[in-house]
């Protein structure tokens, strides 16, 4: 079974936000909730780099470890998904997550938190695949249709890769070897407990 991962090649990302827009459109993510976002470091200075970030679907996911109602579940492909019907919006996973992936809609006027929302790797939720109820709560289930997440599919520079961890790591290594530099697969050590030395 493949272990699905994300890889963002910061030496290629041009901060175009196509991945963010694709995600929002495909999953009808409401205004103010960002399952994916692009972060730019050293803005306007030499060495400026941008990284497209979403839930990395961690190995031994910290979010799952702290959830008081055990709403997270792993899939056979290594994805970390969650059940919104169980979620109580406590926000623990946000504090545990090293990537700031979990998002909460604001409900009411007193900063109350709604059910947690995060990247599903375009793999929907616990309901029947591609059912209307699944779409309403979690968005698209492209994986069930044999497709990869739309963010990576739409990436204009192919900086963002999604797929079997071994295959995307090999693509990245070949790139780095060819061009002679690479700042490393950002976040991999934290998320997957492995570096990507070339």
């Amino acid at each position: 079974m493949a272990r699905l991962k994300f890889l963002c090649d910061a030496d290629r990302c041009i901060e175009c936000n196509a991945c963010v827009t694709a995600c929002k459109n495909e999953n009808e993510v409401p205004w103010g909730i960002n399952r994916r976002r692009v972060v730019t470091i050293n803005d306007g200075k030499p060495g400026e780099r941008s990284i497209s970030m979403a839930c990395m679907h961690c190995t031994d996911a910290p979010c799952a470890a702290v959830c008081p109602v055990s709403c997270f579940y792993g899939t056979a492909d290594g994805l970390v998904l969650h059940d919104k019907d169980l979620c109580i919006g406590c926000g623990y996973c946000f504090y545990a997550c090293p990537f700031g992936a979990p998002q909460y809609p604001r409900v009411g006027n007193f900063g109350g938190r709604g059910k947690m929302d995060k990247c599903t790797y375009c793999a929907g939720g616990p309901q029947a695949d591609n059912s209307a109820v699944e779409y309403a709560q979690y968005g698209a289930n492209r994986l069930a249709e044999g497709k990869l997440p739309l963010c990576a599919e739409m990436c204009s520079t192919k900086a963002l890769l999604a797929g079997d961890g071994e295959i995307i790591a090999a693509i990245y290594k070949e790139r780095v070897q060819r061009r002679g530099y690479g700042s490393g697969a950002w976040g991999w050590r934290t998320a997957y407990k492995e570096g990507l030395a070339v």
Partner: protein
Amino acid sequence: MAETFATQKPATLIWCMGATQHTVGTANVRAFCILLLATGNVGGNGNGANIFRGHCNVQGATDVGLDVVTLPFYYGLDENAWRHWCRVWDVPFESMAARFDTPQMMGVPGIPTTRYFDAVQMPGQGAKREGDENYLQQRDSLKAMVVFGHGGNTVTRMPEAAKGLEKLDLLVVADPHPTTFAVLANRRENTYLLPICTQFETSGSRTASNRSLQWGSKVVEPIFESKDDYEAMYRLAGALDRAAERRAMPVRFQAELFKHIEVQGQQPSAESILREINRGSWSTGYSGQSPERLKLHMANQQHFDLVSLRGKEGTPVAGDFYGLPWPCWGTPEMKHPGTHILYNTNLHVKDGGGTFRARFGVERNGETLLAEGSWPKGSEIEDGYPEFTVAVLKRLGWFDELTAPEKASLEHHFGANIDRASWSTDLSGGIIRVAMEHGCMHYGNGKARANAWNLPDPVPVHREPIYTPRTDLIAQYPTLPDRRGFRLPHLGQSVQARSNTVGRDFPIVLTTGRLVEYEGGGEETRSNKWLAELQQDMFVEINPGDAQSRGIRDGQWVWVTGPESNSRARVKALVTERVGPGVAFMPFHFGGWFMGEDLRGRYPTGTDPIVLGESANTITTYGYDPVTFMQETKVTLCQIRSA
């Protein structure tokens, strides 16, 4: 840079509006081309001048003739050009001439979109005051305007634009969303908003930056009551005909100009529009891309090589370049593959090869302007030569290689003047076909020209911007003297002199440009919730040093003020080292606020974009390229203060 270009080959130069939207725009572009020519970077794989366009089909729209100095496909405005298009449209030349105030006006360039509001505010020749250059070179001021697909806030000097819009007798805005044109002036009467559908709701050919054409098919039916451009124009033409009939005026638009366009109900067919383009556009080689050939390419996209753009052997598109990039010479039946690389003498002319055009005569100051020692692969003439006419074919003894129908077409259209018929006006395509059979370029084989003796600066020189902080450079590098062009006065040095007095109050250089999230005037994209969320506020980028000395914090409201028309804009500060000290940047896609006022209430209910903001062009100032009247959007002066 020249050394890099000379030694690191192939080298290409890519530019967009950063080079062209200047008082020296034409000179910049020419300097780039000269650099490429002098370093041997033209006509080969991976080299050349690559100018990227900002929207779908900007290239096509330009080719088809939205430039006010020419009829479609760069034929110019002289009588030959008019007669050519009259033959294509099948309309008598006299009927065209009758549409103009005087016969001379037929050849006078129109008013560019960068200056429409000046043309509204200036008197026409009728009301011109003696000795006053401030007049429009036509009978009357501009009275009515129909705007198709143009944002309005992408044009400089918006405080003046607001005055001009207010003064128009009639304004029609045809666009998918109400643009800045619709709300900038407080117009109540004689203002019409026509809902036009997007490119996804209509079919037709679209030309990309690399000159490839693609057939776009309608994806969804037009939403609400919107119509596509074709139908809107067809119906407008019909309404004008009925009005003319009622007034017993002889002019007809729909009846004359749609003669060879198939119309179903009120809907002209996109295929027949392209066929008309094919019939007339020999000059630019838009003649070979029939709807059938383009659709074949779309259906066989997988058979094109991604690097060479060529259709693979053994497939229905073998040998063609993807999208038949223009020039695709001759008739569709000639099966020219399109021209992927311009001026490539390593290919046969029938295989996409080419020469430099012999456009500027055959000799100047005793020196030949024709090519020497250069010709395309397989050419029977191994030397330079002028462009092909019937007379040239006769002299070469090739005239009788024209087929009987080709000869008949030439005789029908040119009669006794047949010798003067040229490759670009021969509607049969025969002259092109015969020249190419001999490996020759019908437009001649000339030299590229670095010295453009008919332009204001034949060899490009530096000229300081109109508003410059380096007033010490004005004496040595002044802008051009005041002059006239495009029916209007064109001020240069008299405005530039203001730099000496306004510099103290406006010490920051302001430049403008694009954001990736928004497009053009921005109404479509600012109305899209996914994109609008990414850029919610109009902003000015300011260097940390300049921000600190003004007590400005990142994200706070500031006033940007400009040196003309008491212009001011309330925007958010983005403190960043993206801009150097003394320089500020504003994106030009925002609209719907004007000098501190929120105009949201002026949009028809439900049509207001999600995000509104001040327009950068509220602050931009006077300045036009002398050849094109392209506006100066890239350099002016401003001041920034806390709001």
